């Protein structure tokens, strides 16, 4: 048994490389990929896992060899060899991390670009203009205004916008998302639908515009590898993605937002076109005529009032979403019986909020009746 150490080292190197490549592809640590963004990010992660596994095996291997081979034998009181350094070796282990960092940096940059991280549309939203023209909108309905329209003075690209392929094109579906303690409310401004769960058609370009009502929340879709903080106040954020796999996925709040942060969850349903149509019909069937009535009775001002009626529509929707929220909080309370009392308090807090909303509602009706006031 006299194998030269250089051959042993080479064999160990080959084994380490193969093991790293295998594990980088087969770690099985990620949930399913429900969008193209998820595939891109997983490719990046697999690369990092391969490199990471190699470094891990190298370091732990060296430590283990030291532990076994270089431990002091009983009675040996001598010192080790006085090696104080080796410039070429030090250059090598400085240069290798530099190269790894460069590669990962460029790769990450590219993935981020493909996802739509640099979308200029997200930086300056054209639809902001219509909000700015409305009289007193920010006073009347801070909640709705924030939820449905980007602010005119917003210049930050917060979140993930259109990918280079879809840049410049309007999204197939835009949904406004409002985060509040402890629920998500989804409003479809073009369809007049409001819901406590998000329904989208598969293979369509979906754009979420996110706002928070009270504290910072974070909107997380693990199967889509997407997350974005949702801010109260004037900052609006955006997530744009194309679901590629029908199914039911969790929506999670990832930013600590209070004691029931862990209960702040919802569902994303990615539907086939037929399912989506069915869902749309069920939503529209429930829709009261109130909104259309207001819009049509104020004929002379119909164009002027269109945004208002749209907002009203959402207003109504939010009441419904709150109902949904109540039942949701109730069911949470049943699951987590310990938290029941507190959840009841939450329900009441939400009730209070919906009272405020009702007040806003009447304000708005006054405004519509006397637009000049």
């Amino acid at each position, binding site marked *: 048994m006299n194998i030269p150490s250089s051959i042993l080292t080479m064999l160990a190197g080959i084994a380490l490389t193969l093991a790293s490549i295998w594990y980088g592809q087969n770690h099985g*640590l*990620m*949930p399913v990929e429900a969008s193209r963004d998820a595939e891109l*990010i997983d490719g*990046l*992660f697999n690369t*990092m896992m391969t490199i*990471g596994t190699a*470094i*891990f095996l190298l*370091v732990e291997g060296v*430590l283990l060899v*030291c532990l076994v081979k*270089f*431990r*002091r034998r009983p009675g*040996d*009181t*001598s*010192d*080790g*060899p*006085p090696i*104080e*350094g080796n410039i070429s*070796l*030090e250059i090598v*282990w*400085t240069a290798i*991390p*530099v190269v790894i*960092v460069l590669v*990962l940096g460029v790769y*990450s*940059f590219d993935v*981020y670009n493909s*996802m739509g991280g640099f979308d200029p549309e997200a930086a300056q939203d054209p639809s902001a203009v219509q909000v700015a023209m409305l009289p007193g909108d920010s006073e009347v309905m801070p909640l709705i205004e924030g939820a449905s329209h980007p602010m005119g003075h917003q210049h*930050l*690209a*917060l979140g993930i916008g259109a990918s280079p392929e879809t840049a410049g094109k309007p999204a197939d579906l835009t949904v406004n998302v409002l985060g509040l303690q402890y629920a998500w409310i989804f409003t479809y401004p073009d369809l007049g639908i409001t819901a406590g769960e998000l329904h989208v058609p598969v293979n369509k370009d979906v754009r979420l515009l996110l706002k928070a009502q*009270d504290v*910072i929340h974070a909107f997380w879709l*693990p199967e889509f590898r*997407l*997350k*974005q*903080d949702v*801010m*109260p*106040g*004037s900052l609006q954020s955006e997530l744009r993605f194309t679901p590629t796999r029908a199914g039911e996925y*969790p929506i*999670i709040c*990832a*930013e*600590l937002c209070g004691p029931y*942060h*862990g209960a702040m969850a919802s569902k994303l349903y990615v539907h086939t076109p037929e399912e989506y149509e069915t869902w749309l019909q069920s939503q529209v069937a429930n829709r009261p005529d109130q909104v259309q009535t207001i819009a049509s009775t104020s004929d002379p001002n119909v164009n002027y009032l269109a945004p208002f009626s749209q907002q009203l529509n959402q207003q109504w929707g939010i009441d419904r979403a709150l109902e949904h929220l109540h039942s949701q909080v109730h069911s949470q309370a049943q699951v*987590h*019986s310990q938290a029941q009392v507190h959840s009841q308090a939450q329900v009441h807090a939400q009730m209070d909020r919906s009272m405020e909303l009702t007040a806003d509602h009447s304000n708005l009706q006054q405004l519509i009746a006397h637009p000049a006031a």
Partner: protein
Amino acid sequence: MTQTEIPSSISTAHHGGTERKWWHYFTFNEDHKVIGVQYLVTAFFFYLIGGLMAAVIRTELATPASDFVSPETYNGLLTLHGTIMIFLWVVPAGAGLANYLIPLMIGARDMAFPKLNAMAFWMIPPAGITLALSLLVGEAPQAGWTSYPPLSLMTGKVGEGIWIFSLLVLGTSSILGAINFLVTILKMRVPSMPTNKMPLFCWSMMATALLILIGTPVLAGALILLAFDLLVGTAFFNPMGGGDPIVYQHMFWFYSHPAVYIMVLPLFGAISEILPVHARKPVFGYQAIAYSSLAIAFLGCIVWAHHMFTSGTPAWLRMFFMIATMVIAVPTGIKVFGWLATIWGGKLSLNSAMLFAMGFVAVFVIGGITGVMLASVPFDIHVHDTYFVVAHLHYVLFGGSVFGLYAAIYHWFPKITGRLVNETWGRIHFILTFIGMNLTFMPMHQLGLQGMNRRIALYDPKFTSLNELATIGSYLLAVSTIPFLINAIWSWAKGPKADGNPWNALTLEWQTSSPPAIENFEVLPVLTSGPYDYGLEEEEVGLPTAQAGSATLSSSPGA
């Protein structure tokens, strides 16, 4: 073969009437060694409190439902656990090591400003006790150790006020300590010690002190503005009044990212001391390891927004901070590879100190790898605020800082107490800690990737089994402190006596008695070799009789 030549006449002067009494440790004492021990013992006390909180948190998380403590208490516990472990355990424990070791390592009689030093220590107990007591009176802060507004402005004024007050006091203490370390290292070295003969611990404490001085004032600014928002109703950070919560995040992380290095750099230094001694080899690449500390400190100041990749940060900012963060892997890699090359081919004594030092490298590297992954913006978007981050930060702060602190305690225990620890119990402690640490935190990587967010009391039942593993691991970690505590207390009181240099080490702190005399050195030592010249010189130098026992070890013709 030692680093110094001390006139042998002084060895008789050691045991005069200048012994330390136990009650000195409970007074406003200006001796850096007393203060160092005060820091270490106080910090360890808070470690036990923070650990107890972690055990309660893990018990809550043993089941998916929120069924062990109330959700409010849970948030209080996670806030205090984070705050205590950072500001009352790792940071002050590092300061304790620095206090004890810096003057001894550079041949000084005390720190530059002894009175300031004592003041800095005595700020810690009141701040820490106030913070810990807030839980008992039901007013714990609940907004996490990051305390982001507007949540932190809405979760109870008393608790948040206590949190701000404690952090301001602890930050002030930290600044005073840092000034002292920096001036001492720069101005108080024995004349024969140029900077490139300084022990590496001093280099890393220099970098740490710089980071503290740059970062902490910004944190203090953020806390003061937050206090105004909380108590007076201003709106610096409150969006309800037109304030900007993102500005708080920038100010907070401007300190709190460097804080990671404030917590781990002292232990990088300690590991660089411990490995050569017990491997009987010179440290590999002294210059590279020394300057990489400064490089880490510099880069550590320009990466803070990597904690905000999913927050209100524009794309270009995300990219800049991604690259800057990844680059830290380079100086950190230089250190890790330097340590590996140091022990490679050595004669390793696998005692408790060495096991913890090697364990440090073994687990810290995992935190380093996940750290580079987290720097990548697209990947971070997925795992930010999940258990993947919890796993990463515990591999860095438990695997790094806590393993490093244990290694340091075992290594310098004979110097501090004049007695040897029981190595068997030390090894049991290491094995339990190593297994417990990995059992607790390894599953968290998978939890985070699969979709479990952090700071939650209730979770999806599909995550139950991995959480059970983590909870078992955390109990093992709790148990692992018992052999350490028994060993430390018993050895301090009754352990076999240690001579001045039981490890036969070359740095200056070992060239005086154990424990050192009140003035450290009777006659200031003169350097005759570098701090890590193991195996270099074979000829005998004039050894004081106090080191006679160990001298036989070092003079044996090896290599």
